[in-house]
Each structure stands twice: as structure tokens, then as C-alpha cells.
């Protein structure tokens, strides 16, 4: 072994070892969605993403317990709730059991004069007290008598009644045996909120697994537990994708190994084919981790697709080697083309690397570093690693000297016509190409979605679609704005435009409001006099309301309510969910129920200086912005590639022969997908990038000046090997049950097939009758 050869291999191994060691210590993969946000994001969009990843709605698990008698189900619900509360995995569990809210009732009772919106100075005048007492007497005689009686002595003005809705919503599910049931009484209902954030799929999975175990213990034998919610969806989705990607990648690997084995008839070569792509992935991830601090999960997933092209590099090298020729000699013949193949991909990705979207920049960086490393491994390491004679046993493709060129000559013009027609079709459909509704790509089954709708409906859970926001610079100001927002929304409810709403200030009024309520409370002496006058002609005893005097006295000198006094209660949870702090300041969030005519409400909200937020529309707009940015860099990359090809091939005509067939294939690919009734998303765009990447390689190799039949045969072999491996990998993806994977599979499969046909017909010198 020559020392130079040893040195290259040693350097390569050292590089791999260094990358692995560095990654082992420093790699952190995060799922922070905000990385993928455009810098131009509006505050509303930032809030949206924060809510999606960590908001209360993202942490809710909706539970239905079925298959049993009502008594059994109620028992199971209570036992399940007890176990969930004990586990510490859930910050809040509610099955409607009113006895579970004793702490909340205490807080409401102790702070009723600070919380009740009805408190003002007039409320404690003799006349008002007289009216209140009169009303109490009637209530005492009503069916609510026993319940009114309970708080009558301490709360004759009925402040607690004003606050009842805060812990037991009026339109909640019905109770049976003390817990929530569905309307048809077939299932008990429960809502749990995980402590873990919604985006933390592992933690969500743990919480769900715990819930299933707890249920099995709470209702052994029979019973059925149905779960829904964003965390449940996310973990189902991950399970599906995991199971599928295992199965499909195993199938794809077997196919690829089979193809390479048939083509090269050497296990050493087949093994060597894996080296560049593995090196590329390792170096690419290291580069991103070093450049950005963390690597995003999405970068990894997409990056693996983009680097996928590198699998082809060694095949080009091995297939193009003449019998007995050392790989170094092969490289001196076709190295230029291979370098162009690598460099065009680099150029395509480099535009992306400069994007101000961090997510796109990460993808660009990963592709650049990865493809460069893979290219270098192919040209520097493989020739020194693989024995010169190893390529000798490879399959020599059948020589078809006359038939194929003639055939290709005939299809040339029809291909051009077809591409032109496809272009016209795609342009005519340009309004309907994109689908920005990510829900359509969701792998969640229709039955799971309908279960979610049903449970949400039964539980009266907010639509989680419409919000009204009131912003301010600090917490107190946000609470004050929330109070005026509550007034505004109250009028909207009265006008029938919405069915209901929630605001943070209902649970924690601003200090200003609390202070004004507190100062509205009269002195005990004054109050005692007013009360005594009010009671003069009533059937109540003079001393009946002594606890009322005490309560008011205590509230007058007591502290204001703050977040600490609410912590650990349902009320505190509501406040932290509805009052959000981020870099844009403080926002009071008001989720709406039953919105009629959202456009009109949005316009009215804007006039009143509130923000109306349609989460669905906003998220679609976000995806749209992201896709447009990607499209821009895609176009920029193509332009760069075109200029580069013209310069390095020193001929506009040659550059056109390389580039146009690939673009034609890409356009036809899009047209085909549209004809199949598909709409495209961001994922298809990334897939198209790969199509162009591999397509350019086919074109470059076909277009390369080739000496003699043997070389042309080898070219055909190399492109055939590369195309069949790509087709089999992405053909496997087409079998996927997951819409995202299937969609990527379709795009690359058809795109690759069309590329190879177009390049053979339009790039190859055969097709121009120069054979």
C-alpha cells in the first residue's frame, strides 16, 4: 500500500471519527417549530406557533370511557381521575366531579368581593340590600332553596352565584353518578391536561401510556378507553411513521442492494456505495450542528432526502470504469462530469443556505456540506479503498447500437410537445396547484378525526379556531384590556354573534379593578346600619346575616388576589393559559365558542382595537409564506445552475441540453400529479429539488462526450443503475399509508422516471443521430 493512499484513508477515517465524536457530545436535535418560522412573522403568527407547540389546547387529552353500566363507568372515571391526579404527569384532570373543586370553591368564596363583576358601592345601600334580601326569600322558596340556604347568611348579595360559571360552565356535559357523561349516557367523559408540552411527543406518549395503564387498573376486564387530542394524534402519527419507515426502508434497502449486486456482482462494491452517503450525512449534520447550535428534526428528515442523491455518485464511478481500469483513471475521464453533478447540487442548495428562514438555511447547509463530503469521498477515498479489479465483474449492459438511438430520435419531438403542453397546463392551473392546508397531509385517520369532533362537541371544548387577542406592554395593562374585551365580547354574546367566550380577567381581575371593588365595600358600621334598616320589615332575623358583615370586613382589609394565591388551582391554570407573555409583550387570549360570521366579527374587533385570530387561516398563511420563500430559493438556485452550466460547459447549447430536459421532466411531473388529483405542498417542493438534482446528473452523464460504443454502454449502465435504485426507494414510499410520505414518493418516482426518459431522448448525443 502506498503511503499516500494510506494517508487519504486515514484522513477520511479520522474525519469520520472526529465528526462522530463531536456529534456524540454536542448534537442536540430539537423540535422547536419557531426555527422554521419566517423572520417576517407577525406577532399573531408567533402566538399561533407558541400555542400550537405549548398552548393549553395542545396539551389536552379528551377521554371517553365506554362499555359498561353507568355506575361502573362512573366508578372507573373517578378512579382514573384519582390515579391521573396522583401521577404528577397531569396538571389538571376534570371529569365533572364537583367535589374535586373544593379548593377552587374556597378561593372563589374567600375572594368573592374582588372577583364578582357585580360589586360596586350601590350594591350595599339599604335599598339594594332590601331588594337582595327580598330576592333571597324567594330563592329560598324555590327548588334551589337548599343550595341558596347554604351560602345565604354569608353572601346575601349573591356574589358566589355570579362566579359559579367559572368552575362549572353552564353548557358542560351532563352529570350522572357525579361525573360527566355523553348525551346518550353511553360513555363517561374526562379531560386531562398534560404537564408536558404538546410538541414533546415522547412525553405525550408516556402520559398516554400511563393513562391506559391507569384505566386498565381502574376498570379491570371490561371497558373501553377512547382518547383524542393533539398529543394523542402526534403520538399516533409518530407510531405510524416509525412502523412504516422501518418496513419501507427495509424493503427499499433490499431492493437497492439487489440492484447493485446484479449490476456490480461484487459485495465490496455494494458496500462501498454506502460510504459516500453515510459520510455526507455525518459531515452535513456536524456542519449544521456547528453552524446553528442545534439541528432541527425536520432538517434531518428532509436533509436525508436531499442528500439521497449522493447514493448515486459511487454508482457513476463504478459503472463508468473500463475493464481493468484503475478508478483513478476512470475519474480522469469522467471526473469532470461527476464534479459538475456535485457542484450543480451545491449551487441549488446554496441559495437556500442564505435564506433568512433558519429552517431553510439549515437544510441548505446540510445539503451543501453533505453533498460536498459525499463527492469528495467518492473521488478521493473510494479509488484508494476499492481494488482496481473489483469493477471488472460488473454487468455489461446489452449493446443496442441501432434500435435505441432510432427510437429516441422519434420520441424527441413528441417529448418536447408533451413538455410544452404540460407547461401550459401547469400555468393554467397555477391558482390551484398549492394546498396549504396541512390538515390534508395529516396521517390521522378519518375515524380518529370524527372521534375528536364528537368528544369536543360533547365536552363543549372551545373550537380552538377563533381567538380574540388584546395586547399590552405589561401584565396589569393586559388584564385591564382583557376586562374591556370581556365587556365587548359580552355585547357580542347578547347580539347572538358568538355563543360564549373566556377571558383571563374573569379569573384574575386587574389590580385596578380589584382595588375599585374593594374600596366599594362599606365600613362595617355603615353596612350594619344599612342592613339593619333593610331587615326591619323582613321575615329574616336581625342577626341572620352576621357572617355577611364579617366577610365584608375581612375583604375590606384583606389582600388583593394574585397569581400565587391561584397557583395549583383550575383558576390559576386558566390564567396562565389565557394570559401569555412572549417577546411581543403580554397578550390576553379570549377563545370563542360558536362564532357566527367570523369575517364580520373580525372587522368589528379591528375597529374596537382588538385582534381577531383565525388559527386555521393563520397557520395556512404561515405555510404559504414558507412555501413562497422556498420557491424563491428554488428559482434562484436554478438560475445559478444555468449560469454555472453555461460557463463550465462553455456552450449555451450544451447547457440547454442538460438543463431543459430536467426542467421539462419536473414540469411534466407536476402536471401528472395535478392530473392525478393531487395538490402540492412544501413537501412536494423539496421532493422536486431532489428530482432536479438527480435529473441533472442523468443529463450530465448522457450529454457527456463519449468515445465509442463501450463507453456509451457504460453510461447507460450507470444511469440505469442510479435511476432504478432511486425508483425503487421512492416506489416503496408510494406504498406508504402516510400521506406525506406517499406524496414525496409519488413526486420523486414520477419525476425520476420522466427525467431519465427525457434526458435519454433530449440530452443524449444518440438522440441527435450522432451515433
Amino acid at each position, binding site marked *: 500500500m502506498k503511503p499516500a493512499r494510506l494517508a487519504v484513508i486515514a484522513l477520511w477515517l479520522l474525519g469520520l471519527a472526529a465528526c462522530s465524536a463531536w456529534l456524540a457530545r454536542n448534537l442536540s436535535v430539537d423540535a422547536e417549530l419557531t426555527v422554521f418560522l419566517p423572520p417576517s412573522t407577525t406577532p399573531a403568527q408567533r402566538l399561533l406557533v407558541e400555542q400550537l407547540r405549548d398552548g393549553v389546547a395542545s396539551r389536552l387529552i379528551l377521554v371517553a370511557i365506554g362499555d359498561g353500566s353507568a355506575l361502573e363507568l362512573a366508578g372507573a372515571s373517578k378512579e382514573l381521575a384519582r390515579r391521573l391526579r396522583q401521577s404528577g404527569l397531569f396538571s389538571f384532570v376534570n371529569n365533572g366531579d364537583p367535589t374535586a373543586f373544593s379548593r377552587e370553591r374556597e378561593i372563589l368564596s374567600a375572594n368573592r368581593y374582588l372577583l364578582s363583576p357585580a360589586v360596586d358601592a350601590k350594591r350595599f345601600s339599604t335599598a339594594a340590600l332590601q331588594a337582595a334580601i327580598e330576592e333571597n326569600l324567594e330563592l329560598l322558596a*324555590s327548588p334551589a332553596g337548599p343550595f341558596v340556604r347554604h351560602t345565604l347568611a354569608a353572601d346575601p348579595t349573591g356574589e358566589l352565584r355570579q362566579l359559579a360559571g367559572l368552575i362549572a360552565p353552564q353548557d358542560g356535559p351532563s352529570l350522572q353518578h357525579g361525573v360527566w357523561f355523553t348525551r346518550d349516557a353511553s360513555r363517561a367523559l374526562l379531560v386531562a391536561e398534560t404537564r408536558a408540552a404538546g410538541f414533546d411527543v415522547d412525553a405525550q406518549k408516556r402520559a398516554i401510556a400511563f393513562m391506559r395503564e391507569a384505566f386498565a387498573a381502574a376498570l379491570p376486564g371490561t371497558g373501553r378507553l377512547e382518547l383524542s387530542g393533539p398529543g394523542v394524534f402526534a403520538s399516533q402519527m409518530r407510531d405510524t411513521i416509525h412502523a412504516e419507515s422501518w418496513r419501507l426502508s427495509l424493503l427499499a434497502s433490499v431492493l437497492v442492494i439487489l440492484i447493485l449486486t446484479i449490476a456490480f456482482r461484487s459485495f465490496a462494491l455494494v458496500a462501498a456505495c454506502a460510504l459516500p452517503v453515510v459520510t455526507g450525512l455525518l459531515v452535513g449534520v456536524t456542519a449544521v450542528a456547528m453552524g446553528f447550535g442545534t439541528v432541527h428534526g425536520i432538517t434531518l428528515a428532509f436533509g436525508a432526502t436531499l442528500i439521497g442523491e449522493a447514493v448515486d455518485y459511487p454508482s457513476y464511478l463504478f459503472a463508468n470504469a473500463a475493464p481493468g481500469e484503475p478508478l483513478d483513471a476512470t475519474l480522469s475521464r469522467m471526473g469532470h462530469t461527476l464534479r459538475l453533478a456535485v457542484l450543480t447540487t451545491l449551487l441549488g442548495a446554496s441559495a437556500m443556505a442564505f435564506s433568512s428562514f433558519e429552517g431553510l438555511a439549515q437544510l441548505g447547509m446540510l445539503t451543501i456540506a453533505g453533498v460536498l463530503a459525499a463527492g469528495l469521498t467518492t473521488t478521493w477515498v473510494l479509488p484508494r479503498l476499492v481494488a482496481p479489479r473489483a469493477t471488472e465483474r460488473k454487468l455489461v449492459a446489452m449493446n443496442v447500437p441501432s434500435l435505441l438511438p432510432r427510437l429516441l430520435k422519434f420520441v424527441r419531438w413528441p417529448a418536447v410537445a408533451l413538455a410544452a403542453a404540460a407547461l401550459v397546463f401547469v400555468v393554467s392551473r397555477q391558482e390551484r396547484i398549492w394546498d396549504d392546508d396541512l390538515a390534508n397531509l395529516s396521517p390521522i385517520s378519518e375515524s380518529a378525526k370524527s372521534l375528536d369532533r364528537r368528544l369536543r362537541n360533547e365536552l363543549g371544548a372551545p373550537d380552538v379556531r377563533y381567538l380574540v387577542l388584546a395586547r399590552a406592554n405589561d401584565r396589569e395593562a393586559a388584564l385591564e384590556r382583557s376586562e374591556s374585551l370581556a365587556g365587548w365580547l359580552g355585547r357580542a354574546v347578547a347580539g347572538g354573534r358568538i355563543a360564549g367566550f373566556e377571558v383571563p380577567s374573569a379569573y384574575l381581575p386587574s389590580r385596578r379593578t380589584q382595588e375599585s371593588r374593594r374600596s366599594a365595600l362599606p365600613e362595617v358600621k355603615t353596612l350594619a346600619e344599612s342592613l339593619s334598616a333593610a331587615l326591619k320589615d323582613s321575615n329574616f332575623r336581625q342577626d341572620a346575616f352576621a357572617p355577611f358583615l364579617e366577610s365584608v370586613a375581612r375583604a375590606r382589609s384583606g389582600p388583593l388576589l394574585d397569581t400565587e394565591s391561584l397557583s395549583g388551582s383550575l383558576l390559576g391554570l386558566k390564567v396562565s393559559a389565557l394570559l401569555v407573555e412572549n417577546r411581543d409583550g403580554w397578550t390576553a387570549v379570549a377563545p370563542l365558542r360558536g362564532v357566527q360570521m367570523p369575517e364580520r366579527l373580525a372587522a368589528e374587533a379591528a375597529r374596537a382595537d382588538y385582534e381577531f385570530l383565525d388559527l386555521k387561516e393563520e397557520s395556512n398563511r404561515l405555510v404559504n409564506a414558507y412555501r413562497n420563500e422556498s420557491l424563491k430559493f428554488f428559482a434562484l438556485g436554478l438560475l445559478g445552475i444555468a449560469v454555472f452550466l453555461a460557463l463550465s460547459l462553455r456552450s449555451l447549447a450544451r447547457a440547454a441540453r442538460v438543463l431543459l430536459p430536467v426542467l421539462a421532466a419536473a414540469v411534466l411531473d407536476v402536471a401528472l400529479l395535478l392530473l392525478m388529483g393531487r395538490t402540492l405542498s412544501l413537501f412536494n417542493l423539496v421532493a422536486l429539488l431532489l428530482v432536479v438534482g438527480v435529473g441533472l446528473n442523468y443529463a450530465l452523464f448522457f450529454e457527456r462526450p463519449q468515445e465509442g460504443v463501450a463507453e456509451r454502454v457504460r453510461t447507460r449502465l450507470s444511469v440505469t443503475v442510479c435511476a432504478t435504485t432511486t425508483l425503487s426507494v421512492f416506489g416503496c414510499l408510494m406504498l406508504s399509508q402516510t400521506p406525506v410520505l406517499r406524496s414525496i414518493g409519488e413526486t420523486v418516482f414520477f419525476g425520476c422516471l420522466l427525467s431519465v426518459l427525457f434526458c435519454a431522448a433530449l440530452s443524449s448525443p444518440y438522440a441527435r443521430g450522432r451515433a
Partner: protein
Amino acid sequence: MRAPARLLRIAGVLICWLPQLVAAQAVAPSELMRLLASAESSRATFVETRHSVLLKAPLVLHGTLAYRRPDRLEKHVLQPHDERLVLEGDRLTIDNRTRARKLTTSVAGSPAIAAMAEGIRATRAGDLAALERHFEIKVDGRREAWSMSLRPTSEQVSGYVSAIVVTGAGSRITRFEVQETSGDRVVTEIREEIR
């Protein structure tokens, strides 16, 4: 002849006493329910009296009660104010004419009030299953003088009401007494006419 004659006389006495003997036995809940369920409809006047430490004098209401199979119960307070309560199926309507206030809610929306109303309606209907959803039932006495104690099972009600004691004779209900945890007692005396 003498012995058979005596036997006959004893048998005759026994036959005359038989209904009383059977009636003297404690009535079972299921039997009481059958008795109560025999009423197709009923009308009654009532006097309801709340005894409370908060009040100078007991609070007294006068009015009428009406029941119609299977699930309509109307309580019409005539004195001292005018309030009509109708429980029909799942809907509870409270129509206070004195205050011109009308409210319709579903029983599911106010479960505690629903339990109290069901205590009266299900008793009148002889619906054991409905009663058992809300109460623990104990029956004492004979057919023509029975009493049934209903202890609420839901903590939502048991925090306020310790028991409802219903007394009656045959298929008629004569009295409800609600014993509250506050110490108050609400006694409703009923004069019922069954059809």
C-alpha cells in the same frame, strides 16, 4: 258437624282478616313503587313550610301540584308569590310571574336541582330506577301508612340535603320533608286526588 262448623267459622274469620294480615306486613320498595305507579295522573294542593333559624317566622308557601304520566310534574306556587315550575322529560321551566322572569334549562345543566325535583317526580311516578340514580332508598311502614327516606348519593346534593322523607298512604303521598344540612327543615303537606 260441630267440628267442621267451628273450622268453617275460624276459616271465615281468617278470610275476613287476610287483607289486614297482608297489609300489616312491612311494604317492600318494589311494591310501594307499584302502588305509586298505578296513578295515571294526580292533582293536589300543598302547604310548604320552611323552618329556619334565620327566619323570624316559618316561611309558608301555598299552591298546587299536578302530575301526569310518564314524566310531567308541575308545581304552582300561588302564595306569597306566583311561580310555576314545570319538569317535563329533561326540561325544567321556571316561570316567575311576580318577577316576570322565565327560565328554561335542561336538567343536565343543573344536576343538583334536578336531583331534588326527581325526588318528587320519580316518587310520584313510582320509578325506582330514577330514584336510585340519585338516592339511597329506605322504606318503612305498612301499605296504608308508609314512609320512604331518600338519602342523596351525589356529593353535590348531600352537602346540602341530608334526606328527603316522603310519607303516604296507599298510592297517595301525604307529606314531603326535606332535611337540610344547615338544620333547616322544609315540610310539604299534600292533599292529593288520584286519577
